[in-house]
């Protein structure tokens, strides 16, 4: 191409070095918070950790099916109350520490036990463990009761309640198995830019320049023979999509994620680039808080579900990159779909009628909160909010748009009386419906409120979810979750707007990248020409 200026200038200096080394450059849409496993909730950190760590179980590329990871086999006994994992033998951490049952126990204790001495970072609280497994050690609701080292390569988890989804959950991107030696040696520096991170994964920590890049080198002793296929991976932190696309076009990054759908046409028109779709594993929804009086009436919420032209919005903002079907879970979970659910049709007249029946013939005022950041489920939250606002004003609901910075947004929606209506979404952690229903509909619901300002408690639905959580009979679980699908659809508390296939892109010459519906995957299989 025309990279003459840099090209000519750099040629003399670089030419002599020879570029036999294959470096893969990833345009990361931000900087990891930390590389310490189990102490993160954001996708950017997970992406980086996936390259450094391995997990007890792994997922089949491009799907949510569980396959062997550091554990080669596992089984449940006592109605899913006891889970036993057999570990792969002969695997070593990048610092030479052998991977064994003690090492796994060390990691799990660190996440689970608030009193664990290896928890050094004062400001860390390993929240994600408690979110996925009911609580920490000592909490009443904790699903984990005990961890036992059976022998050098066998570890056993004893549960308080049946946890049929345990392998999928412990294999989620948060829980990479880290080297106990490194954590003990580095203390509070572990996982930060001033320290390092040590796992058993395909790439090893080399350096982290804050605000700029994270460099990982090939793990020469990786247990999967022939992997990774590149010598190093560099995460360049480029927050804004326009800048990242410019870099991709210039060839200074090889591949990137989180591209706003408006750019699909542009990508398809560039011969050097390739648009790639990540299989949908998310939902973008509009939450309606019954703590706000007009929204306490299900008729009003259903009216809103009818008034928002979801198909037009999806078509406008995602095109072929999104779909809407009324189900809270994406199509990769369609085993659990209720056949009774067909989405509310777009019908402003009927919506107005419903509003009138509920006692709001002239509509009402509504504060609609949209996220200040781009997420795969709502890449351009602000514009989508505006589109929904326009639809709502057509049935007399006067929308006022609100936003806050991201952390405050996440936090304040849980403070009574909460936001009146807000946009949010979910990307699944693992392929089990419990991961979708529990955080959103299990009582008490932290981010929706009742008239008294208490977190919402849906007794009937909660009983179903409880039953499904503790059943190890797959057929029964399917039937229960189909019921849950039915009920949540009728409640219209979280109106599913979209299941999107996030747009990612790579340059021609990159192959072997299989984006996972789970949102992150290893780069070990990627080949660069």
């Amino acid at each position, binding site marked *: 191409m025309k990279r003459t200026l840099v090209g000519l200038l750099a040629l003399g200096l670089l030419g002599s070095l020879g570029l036999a080394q294959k470096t893969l450059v990833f345009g990361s849409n931000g900087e990891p*918070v930390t590389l310490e496993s189990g102490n993160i909730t954001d996708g950017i950190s997970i992406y980086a950790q996936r390259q450094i760590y391995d997990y007890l179980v792994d997922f089949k590329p491009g799907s949510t099916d569980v396959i062997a990871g550091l554990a080669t086999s596992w089984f449940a006994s006592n109605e899913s109350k006891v889970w036993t994992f057999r570990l792969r033998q002969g695997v070593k951490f990048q610092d030479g520490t052998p991977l064994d049952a003690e090492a796994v126990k060390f990691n799990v204790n660190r996440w689970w036990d608030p009193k664990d001495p290896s928890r050094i970072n004062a400001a860390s*609280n390993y929240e994600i463990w408690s979110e996925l497994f009911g609580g920490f050690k000592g909490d009443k609701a904790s699903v984990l009761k005990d961890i036992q080292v059976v022998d050098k390569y066998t570890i056993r988890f004893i549960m308080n309640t049946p946890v049929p989804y345990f392998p999928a959950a412990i294999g989620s991107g948060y829980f990479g198995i880290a080297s106990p030696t490194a954590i003990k040696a580095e203390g509070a520096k572990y996982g930060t830019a001033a320290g390092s991170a040590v796992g058993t994964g395909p790439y090893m920590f080399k350096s982290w320049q804050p605000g700029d890049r994270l460099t990982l080198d090939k793990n020469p002793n990786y247990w999967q023979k022939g992997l990774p296929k590149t010598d190093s991976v560099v995460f360049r932190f480029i927050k804004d999509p326009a800048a990242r696309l410019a870099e991709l076009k210039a060839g200074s990054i090889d591949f990137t994620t989180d591209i706003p759908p408006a750019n699909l046409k542009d990508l398809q028109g560039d011969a050097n680039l390739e648009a790639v779709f990540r299989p949908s594993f998310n939902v973008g929804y509009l939450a309606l808080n019954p703590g706000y009086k007009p929204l306490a009436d299900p008729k009003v919420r259903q009216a809103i579900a009818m008034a928002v032209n979801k198909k037009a919005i999806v078509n406008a903002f995602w095109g072929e990159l999104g779909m809407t079907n009324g189900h809270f879970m994406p199509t990769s979970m369609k085993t659990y779909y209720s056949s009774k659910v067909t989405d509310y049709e777009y019908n402003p007249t009927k919506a107005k009628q419903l509003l009138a029946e509920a006692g709001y013939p002239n509509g009402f005022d509504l504060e609609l909160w949209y996220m200040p950041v781009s997420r795969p489920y709502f890449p351009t939250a602000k514009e989508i909010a505006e589109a929904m606002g326009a639809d709502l004003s057509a049935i007399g609901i006067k929308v006022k748009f609100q936003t806050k910075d991201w952390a405050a947004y996440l936090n304040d929606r849980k403070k009574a009386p909460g936001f009146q209506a807000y946009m949010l979404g979910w990307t699944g952690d693992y392929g089990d419906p419990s991961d979708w229903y529990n955080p959103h509909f299990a009582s008490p619901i932290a981010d929706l409120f009742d008239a008294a300002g208490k977190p919402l408690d849906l007794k009937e639905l909660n009983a179903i979810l409880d039953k499904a959580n503790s059943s190890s009979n797959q057929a029964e679980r399917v039937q229960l979750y189909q019921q849950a699908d039915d009920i949540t659809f009728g409640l219209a508390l979280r109106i599913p707007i979209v299941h999107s296939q996030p747009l990612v892109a790579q340059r021609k010459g990159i192959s072997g990248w299989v984006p996972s519906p789970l949102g992150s995957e290893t780069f070990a299989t990627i080949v660069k020409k």
Partner: protein
Amino acid sequence: MGAYTARRLLGLIPVLLGISLLVFLFLHLIPGDPAVVLLGERATPEQVATLREKMGLNQPLYTQYFLFMRNLLHGDLGNSVFNLLPIREQLASRWPATFELALSSILIAVLVGIPLGILAAVRKNSMADNFSTIFSLVGVSMPVFWLGLLLIYLFAVNLQWLPPSGRISVEAGASFKTITGFYLLDSIIQGRSLAEVAAHLILPALTLGTIPLAILTRITRGAMLEVLSQDYVRTARAKGLGERVVIWRHALKNALLPVVTIIGLQFGTLLGGAILTETIFSWPGIGSWIYEGILNRDYPVVQGGVIFVALVFVVVNLVVDLSYALLDPRIQYR
């Protein structure tokens, strides 16, 4: 001169106290408990209590300020809430990027602005003068963030002459050692990647440098015109000295005084403008760091960044004032 310096230094004390007070109050002005603000949404009550104790939030405000000052004097600005790293370390790793950018911008402004201003003054009302006038008018009216986007669009995306963001490419960065943090200097020391580093610097430096460039052109032109109309220049001309000698020996020397002042003042202003430029070019300096801090509600970062920039600003202004006093012909010649 010594007395003047002492007076200026003494005069700084109340200003520095004021800055520290303002930055100290910053955390307290944000609605909500500072400990909660610092720890973020996932903090447990115990952690909040511990931090309140550690920060002395249960003590009267003046005691807290005293503690804050003591830590500040020890260079302890706390830790980031977001990635837990000490603010001091992050400042240390990021300021060279910002300084390199700001210095390059000033350099562009000086190398282009001063000759352009001189040319405009010497050939008053010529095409060159009109061009420089229009250029400087448009330049000071330019939204830098827009200019940055235009430059990326033109030179990085369309022509692909220059890289769109960052300080060094991945290929060159792999074997590049950060010694001083000033990449230009580092590349000279190592004898490699100089062109690489320079290429990455051009667009952001142009973006950030446009306003000072415009101002400098205008000031230089004005100062030169002023000086050229002075008696001693007329005398020099009357003595039959060549035009070149008159301009370079006599006029320029005296015209440069206000120009030097402006350069100093602009440097401080650049540090503020760097927030926008660094954001657009993913430049890992203080500006993008403060901005990320605001987005992440990472208040210690914002606090540390703001106090750092303010201190640099104050010091630069002091140096400008002192050098002005040192160079002022009225002091020299009387």
